[in-house]
């Protein structure tokens, strides 16, 4: 790909310091580049620091060692160029669906009529028409995550950071949401960094897959993934199954290591 990488991560270390107990090296010498409009999956066992890496890119945690730059500028704080979607939705429970989606637009000082129109467009996009005035507590998990995705897409960040966004959903809903996410991404390509521990999900969604090692998290391999992201039936193809196998072999030993390190497994 020609031109500058959109996200550059160089030699990043991160130490997690729990309130009680010893500090833990969560990330060790992580380097990675993400191209504009690329869909990259960060894949690894639980506790490998993949979410931590995402939060560092988001500017939510201080960068202790190394460098992270977005479009050539060092990351120092969160900003609306990087939208985030969390596993547990992080919707404002006191705001309706509409008010949640409007929030980012209000912060961007968008004129009222424009933001109302834009919010409605994204409510329609994620199929939540008729639920505009519902509170998150009245919605199913899938609907909550649709709202969260609409909220993030609405303020039009260049980069979408997704932290196991479908991890809290049931299997059917997860499959539907994956297809929908691909549809949205095919229509309005954004740079996506998608954290997951699900190999199939990574192969189905991402163009490149960065496999991380168990704690301390390192980038173990970066795999190109050429399966067709416009074809929902691709999951039954030989190509897909082989790709899943290839990556599962890389992940398996890390998963075993991670399991062995769990204090009370």
């Amino acid at each position, binding site marked *: 790909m020609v031109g500058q990488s959109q996200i550059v991560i160089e030699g990043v270390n991160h130490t997690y310091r729990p309130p009680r107990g010893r500090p833990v090296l969560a990330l060790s010498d992580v380097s990675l580049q993400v191209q504009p409009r690329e869909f990259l999956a960060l894949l690894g066992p639980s506790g490998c620091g993949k979410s931590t890496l995402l939060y560092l890119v988001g500017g*939510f945690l201080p960068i202790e060692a190394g460098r992270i730059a977005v479009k050539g500028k060092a990351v120092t704080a969160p*900003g609306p160029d990087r*939208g*985030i979607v969390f596993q547990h939705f*992080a919707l*404002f429970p006191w705001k309706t669906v509409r008010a949640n989606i409007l929030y*980012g637009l209000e*912060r*961007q000082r968008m004129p009222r009529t424009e933001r109302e129109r834009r919010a409605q467009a994204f409510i329609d996009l994620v199929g939540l028409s008729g639920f505009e005035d519902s509170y998150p*507590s009245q919605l199913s998990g899938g609907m909550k995550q649709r709202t969260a995705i609409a909220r993030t897409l609405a303020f039009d960040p260049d980069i979408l950071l997704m932290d196991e966004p479908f991890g809290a959903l049931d299997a059917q809903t997860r499959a539907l949401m994956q297809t929908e996410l691909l549809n949205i991404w095919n229509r309005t390509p954004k740079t996506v960094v998608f954290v997951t521990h699900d190999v199939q999900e990574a192969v189905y969604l991402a163009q490149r897959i960065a496999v991380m090692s168990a704690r301390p998290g390192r980038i173990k391999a970066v795999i190109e993934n050429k399966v067709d992201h416009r074809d929902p039936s691709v999951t039954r193809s030989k190509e897909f199954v082989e790709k899943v196998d290839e990556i599962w072999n890389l992940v398996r030993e890390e998963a075993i290591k991670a399991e062995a390190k769990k204090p009370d497994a």
Partner: protein
Amino acid sequence: MQAVLRAGLRYLPLLFLALAWEAVTRLNLVDTAALPPLSKVAVAWIDLIRGGELIDNAKASLYRGSVGLLLAIFGGGGLGLLMARWRLLDIFVNPLVELFYPLPKSALIPITVLWLGFGDASKILLIFLGCMIPVTIGAYNGARGSDHALVWSARSMGANRLRMMWDVILPSALPELLNGIRTALALAFILLVSSELIVSQQGFGYLIGYLGATGSYEGMYAVALTVAFLGFAADRIYQLFMQWLLAWRE
């Protein structure tokens, strides 16, 4: 209509209590000097309203109570939220809150009088100090429990720190903050009447003490029941307000 009926049934035991009160006094089962019949208390209440004493003293008490409570809500709520977000303040103020929490606030009555005299100011200060503690603790615990993913979401959507305080921390703290305020509301009545009983020339407490000292026990009971009813009504109205504010929960 059904709701009214159900509420009526709920408070039926109070009616039985009132009837029992009237019965035992009419049948001379108790000393009527210590417990006058409820009907005579009712007559005394009407006289106190007509004479204006009850209204005048109620005005004085409600003024002190509401000013003290409002100061406690804004001061204590603000302090609790800031403590939750600002470590240095937390380190300095938290031990003070811990020390002050179990202190019987009525012990401060003579001190506030010494500082501010016998008038409104000393009562307002007492209520402010006493009611601030539950509000501060509620705001602090509520804000500490706020989900960092919500804070991060707001920050990534362009909210600065002040906006985040208002848009995320305050609403996250609201359920516990409102419970703290409910405790403070009840405490305000307690502190109000006890301080007025001890040192005052106005207010519910003063009126109860004065009527008791002059032997008008029917009147004394009438004022005490009025305070009890006002406390009850304030709490019920406050609970409705709370339900309305927290309607987004389930």
